[in-house]
């Protein structure tokens, strides 16, 4: 079933909407959540919570891309769950990877200078616009989907070490651009 048909089922308040959504994107959601949450049960719960969240959000929402919309919900819920589980620990993958990216962002002198998430999104999108396809996929797979270098390598047909090197270069490039634009977080 295509995405627009699934969205229509949500709008029609049909109970098969969740079934069709799960059939099409169940594995995808579970994979994304499992990248963030080591416990499979936590991951499954988050995916189910995401379905529920979509049921509540559509309508009135009418997502342009169901995949992207769903992935954001799964990602946010999983990250929140990871934060809750971590509670002082610093070993969950999403946190480690985001901290890796954090090193690119210069710290502001005052809180007022700090950019908000919305502004960071603009900066990152502009940065992604400037990348070639492979590098863009590598970046998104790492910091959006929280894939390991090995997983990314399999997807794009590069070795693990090549992906690591490219990520390092991408972060350096992002850092230079952020410094040039005086963007602080």
């Amino acid at each position, binding site marked *: 079933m295509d995405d627009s048909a699934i969205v229509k089922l949500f709008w029609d308040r049909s109970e098969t909407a969740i079934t069709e959504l799960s059939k099409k994107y169940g594995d995808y959601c579970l994979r994304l959540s499992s990248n963030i949450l080591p416990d499979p049960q936590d991951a499954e719960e988050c995916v189910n919570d995401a379905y529920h969240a979509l049921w509540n959000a559509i309508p009135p929402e009418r997502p342009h891309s169901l*995949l992207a919309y769903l992935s954001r919900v799964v990602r946010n819920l999983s990250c929140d769950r990871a934060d809750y589980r971590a509670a002082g620990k610093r070993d969950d993958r999403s946190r480690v990877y985001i901290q890796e990216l954090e090193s690119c962002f210069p*710290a502001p002198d005052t809180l007022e200078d700090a950019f908000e998430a919305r*502004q960071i*999104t603009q900066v990152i999108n502009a940065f992604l616009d400037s990348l070639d396809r492979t590098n863009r996929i590598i970046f998104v797979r790492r910091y959006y989907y929280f894939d390991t270098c090995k997983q990314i390598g399999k*997807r*794009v047909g590069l070795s693990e070490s090549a992906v690591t090197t490219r990520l390092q270069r991408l972060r350096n490039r992002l850092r230079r651009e952020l410094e040039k634009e005086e963007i602080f977080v």
Partner: protein
Amino acid sequence: MTESIRTQTIREGVAGIRDAYIEEAETTRYVATFLSRIAVLAAAVSLFIMISVLWNVNFPANSGDPVFIITAQASGEYDPYLQEIIGSWLSSTIGPIGESEIPYYLKCMPQDLPKTFHIRILAGPQTDFENLDIYYPVVAYNGKRVKLGDSDSNIEIYRSLFDPTQEGDYFFILDGWFTKPTQVDVLLYQRGALLSPDKLIQRKTFLISFSDGDYVIEPQNDNLFSNP
């Protein structure tokens, strides 16, 4: 800003990545890269073929062609059998051997005896000896080609000395009287395509000259699988 808030802000910022990029990263699979590798491979093969054509490189007609090693050596031994043949040849081509004629030819030779040039064709280890006769050598004497068994005014190649049923050194003999440095080309062709450049599978050139009263044979090149 505390560390956890920074982390959260950046994480949320990344969450806003364009839908198209999120989809692209999910839907792009290894197959795309695989195809690009195929494209790179195809480009490399095309380039190789193009270079080969430009350089006019010829390859063996069949990948299973045996490799022949052509060597040459001069033998200083007098061979009465060869002398007999040469004598017979002289009588048939020049006429009856007269006392005044024979010394003239013999005088051209450094040691007053026929020199025997063994041009050996050694079959490679993968050679199918039963099918060896699908190849035949052509010798060019000072640029003029002489077929096996044919004779030139100053050179003879003895087919009878070939024994393709026997494994080992296959040699034929150029018997000649050379009074000046002479170039001999040995060309190995596939049968049925006489002197066709694309059927030439091997060529070797030797320069035969004199030094200290003896013949010196020097390989001039080793242009395997190249055009004459």
